[in-house]
């Protein structure tokens, strides 16, 4: 996949981070061992809703090695509530429950002891008297006015209920000859990284600074910690040189860090919280969207959809945080890759007595894409048309870009039909259908699944002002600083943590490309938060665009400095000074040149040779704004949400054992277009991993609750992550439509596998079940349930 436009970009180079991990020299938060560290175990509420009547700490505090038991009242008196995304002042969120606990697993106390084991022992000895309260688990029940409000002061469970109208929806519905409605449900699952959340903090009372090492992927993390602890931002120093063991959205850790930070100040020692798996699954506040969609479309005889009405009802759990914004991100691609002319979108978020949601890969867009793609299949079925043909007719055409969708975002570039053609040139559609039919003839249920998806990337977090008018955010910048030392070595910076995305490789490649230097010789470091320029962390598929862009511009600034120094020293006009691979020569007389080391020496030692007004030394920095700028949403909720839109097309051949209900993916093809690929290994890995994650969401993973409000899938025995047996070989067909908005034409690539896979697999399952007359409209499609459905349908058939 080498590209002659570039020296290093798009070449199949190794990922520099990999070396430290394969030898066990990653540096994860739980690896940080500070002398004198004390450990925390969490006391959790066993009930879905309860008033805390009394807490008896006596027995726990009497145990050897136990130092402290913190409760919610004490913490609340000393700290500010955690930041909420929406303007919901009566839904306060605290790290430890204050007087009322609102879900089973909620944190009510934190026990501090010399070891984690002693803290766990003592946590069991904390006696809490509860008075049970009514609770609600289901979103529709929570929405009903008579349901018990999770937050009594808020008065209802509705956090958000907003209807957007983009275009002439009623007119378009009236004019279209056909309508189809559909209800689909996206089950509650999440990203569930193998590393749980871990944080180590240490308060230095003499320097008045809190050092934090945490497994975070969180925008504006230090600011939130400082605000909650009521200390200046400069009193929180977050160390970014911590490797994060997977996140895919959820590693936010605000409440963990506030508890640890408070206790470190209170007790004068380093404090460590490393969740165990149970704490993580029940009370880590890292569940994902659980969403009910009612979709209706109006379409013509050819299956071309003219208008769509979508109602999305999300069960966000007991507290809000940022999670309701996951109903906002889909606005940036509300019609997917299709030319739907008008849209009505009603977004509703309700609280319930379930674990709190956090950001999950693609931030709410994957459920929405599942709903849109299910509808595409339904339209095809209704008209008796081929599912692929219906999609082709609805997809935006290459010549229509830039294409503005009804909700105000303009898609930058794409050639969706070309991607599909390429996939089908790799394996003919007819051959896949024939393979499916052979499987059917052999007695198995078999289906072909189809889904397209867009991956919006690199945006301004515009869903914040869209859903909260008091929030006026219009930038989501990222930064890079490059310095050259006296030896001529180049060092570039990243101002956030990474969780497997290869950002050091990204920055090395980009800086090397611009400066014409070997990327492996570019040192990439991560200053702590107090030494850092602004970053908004690796969320929203943004780093190739935003960190890559910042590194590109910083490198160009550095190059401009070197060129100016050389022009001055050579006594030539600046435009004649030509930079190449670190040296600068006179374009009119290439023999006259200054080598890299000479230029560096001038900058560092020879002020008398610098152009007038030049600062000595050699460094450059760039803080990058989102390429499409930043504007607030219009009053009807239109906004440019993302600058770049990647495209994927998924084709899945799946067989189901009719006796066991066990699905088996026989072929998985994906056409992938994320513009210019900076590192092919990384992009391939992201695509494959995203698909694996999507297979889990479609077939295996669910945070299931019983009717008593207890989470019944809280270990890896019952919350099933795909193993190597469940993920088939995946064939990626690459296409490249550069973005006009980015420095190399790159777009985001971390999410599209997860955006398309659940829809594609659901489509395959439904195609497989079609001969039995079964349609499944919810995820996950679990094996046992599928087996029962098939058995019942076969029984019905036999009974005739």
């Amino acid at each position, binding site marked *: 996949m080498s590209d002659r436009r570039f020296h290093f970009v798009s070449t199949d180079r*190794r*990922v520099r*981070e*990999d*070396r*430290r*991990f*394969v*030898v*066990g*020299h*990653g540096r*994860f938060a*739980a*690896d940080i*061992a500070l002398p004198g560290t004390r450990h925390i175990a969490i006391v959790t509420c066993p009930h879905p809703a309860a008033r805390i009547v009394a807490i008896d700490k006596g027995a726990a505090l009497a145990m050897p090695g136990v130092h402290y038991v913190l409760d919610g009242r004490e913490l609340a008196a000393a700290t500010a509530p955690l930041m909420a995304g929406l303007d919901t002042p009566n839904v306060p969120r605290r790290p430890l429950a204050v007087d009322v606990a609102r879900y089973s697993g909620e944190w009510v106390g934190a026990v501090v002891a010399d070891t984690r*084991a002693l803290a766990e022992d003592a946590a069991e000895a904390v006696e809490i008297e509860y008075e049970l309260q009514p609770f609600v688990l289901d979103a529709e029940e929570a929405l009903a006015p008579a349901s018990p409000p999770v937050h009594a002061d808020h008065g209802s469970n509705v956090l958000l209920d907003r209807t957007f109208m983009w275009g002439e929806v009623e007119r378009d519905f009236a004019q279209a000859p056909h309508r189809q409605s559909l209800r689909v449900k996206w089950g509650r699952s999440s*990203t*569930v*990284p*193998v*590393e*749980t959340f871990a944080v180590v903090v240490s308060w230095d009372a003499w320097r008045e600074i809190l050092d934090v090492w945490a497994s975070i992927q969180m925008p504006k993390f230090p600011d939130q910690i400082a605000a909650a602890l009521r200390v200046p931002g400069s009193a929180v120093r977050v160390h970014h040189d911590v*490797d*994060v*063991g*997977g*996140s*895919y959205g959820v590693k936010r850790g605000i409440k963990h860090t506030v508890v640890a930070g408070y206790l470190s100040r209170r007790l004068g020692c380093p404090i460590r919280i*490393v969740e*165990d*798996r149970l704490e993580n699954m029940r009370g880590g506040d890292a569940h994902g969207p659980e969403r009910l969609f009612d979709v209706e479309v109006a379409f013509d005889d050819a299956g071309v959809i003219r208008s769509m009405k979508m109602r999305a009802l999300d069960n966000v759990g007991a507290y809000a945080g940022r999670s309701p914004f996951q109903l906002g991100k889909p606005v940036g691609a509300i019609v997917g890759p299709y030319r739907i002319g008008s849209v009505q979108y009603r977004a509703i978020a309700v609280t319930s007595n379930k674990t709190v949601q956090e950001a999950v890969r693609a931030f709410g867009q994957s459920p929405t894409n599942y709903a849109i793609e299910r509808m595409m299949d339904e339209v095809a079925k209704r008209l008796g048309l081929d599912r692929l043909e219906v999609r082709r007719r609805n997809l935006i055409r290459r010549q229509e870009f830039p294409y503005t969708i009804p909700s105000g975002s303009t898609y930058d570039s794409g050639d969706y039909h070309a991607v599909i053609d390429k996939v089908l040139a790799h394996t003919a559609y007819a051959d896949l259908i024939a393979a499916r039919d052979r499987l059917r003839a052999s007695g198995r249920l078999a289906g072909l699944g189809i889904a397209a998806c867009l991956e919006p990337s690199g945006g301004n977090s515009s869903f914040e002002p869209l859903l909260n008018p008091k929030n006026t955010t219009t930038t989501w910048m990222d930064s890079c600083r490059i310095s050259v030392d006296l030896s001529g070595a180049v060092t570039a910076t990243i101002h956030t943590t990474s*969780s*497997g*995305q*290869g950002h050091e490789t990204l920055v090395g490649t980009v800086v090397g490309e611009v400066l014409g230097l070997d990327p492996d010789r570019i040192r990439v470091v991560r200053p702590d938060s107090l030494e850092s320029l602004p970053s908004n962390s690796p969320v929203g598929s943004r780093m190739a665009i935003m960190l890559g862009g910042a590194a590109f511009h910083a490198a160009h600034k550095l190059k401009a400095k070197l060129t100016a120094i050389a022009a001055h020293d050579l006594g030539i006009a600046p435009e004649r000074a030509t930079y190449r691979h670190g040296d600068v020569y006179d374009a009119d007389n290439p023999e006259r040149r200054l080598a890299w080391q000479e230029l560096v020496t001038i900058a560092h030692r020879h002020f008398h040779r610098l152009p007038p007004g030049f600062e000595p030394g050699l460094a450059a920095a760039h803080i990058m704004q989102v390429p499409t700028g930043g504007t607030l949403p219009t009053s009807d909720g239109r906004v440019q949400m993302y600058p770049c839109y990647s495209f994927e097309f998924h084709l899945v051949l799946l067989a189901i054992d009719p006796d066991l209900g066990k699905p088996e993916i026989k072929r998985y093809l994906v056409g992938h277009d994320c513009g210019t690929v900076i590192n092919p*290994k*990384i992009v*391939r*890995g*992201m695509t*494959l*991993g*995203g*698909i*694996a*994650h999507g297979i889990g969401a479609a077939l295996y993973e669910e945070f299931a609750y019983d009717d008593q409000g207890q989470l019944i899938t809280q*270990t*890896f*025995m019952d919350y099933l*992550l*795909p*193993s*190597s*047996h469940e*993920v088939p*070989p*995946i064939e990626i067909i690459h296409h490249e439509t550069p973005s006009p908005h980015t420095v190399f034409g790159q777009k985001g690539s971390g999410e599209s*596998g997860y955006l398309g896979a659940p829809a594609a697999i659901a489509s395959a399952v439904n195609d497989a079940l079609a001969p039995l007359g079964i349609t499944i409209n919810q995820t996950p499609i679990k094996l046992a349930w599928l087996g029962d459905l098939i058995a019942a349908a076969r029984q019905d058939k036999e009974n005739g």
Partner: protein
Amino acid sequence: MRTELTINGKAHAVDVEPRTTLLDCLRDHLGLTGAHAGCEHGVCGACTVLLDGVAVRSCLMFAVQADGYAITTIEGLSPGPGELSPLQDAFCETHGLQCGYCTPAMILTAHALLADKPEPTRDDIVEAISGNICRCTGYVQIVEAITLAAERLRGANRPPEPQ
């Protein structure tokens, strides 16, 4: 409780509570942080180490039970500072990892497989690593890494062709 553990060819005397898992002992008492906790109930495999060459979950056994075995951790696989074993190098070549959290255990599991089966089929590899959860990669590049390492190791062990 005093116990003697032989780790990466070196004897270590440690004083641990009887209930201390081998994983916690390696990490907290010996500073060998390449073994990771993921689930602590034996499903994810992130804590895998080798006991007499067999891949086991260090979260499911007590440190005192490991007395008398030859324990290999990820720290014992690298030939020297800055050097990679052929298997470790193959993981870098195919990018068989992302966040790196499951990686040491995955490599130890693969190491045990290749010691047992120098010519594994894809099914052998998939079966061997099926007890190690990776959330990042979807396993495809991991299977490629192990396949590549097996090929290279077989090549390295072959006598030179006669001139």
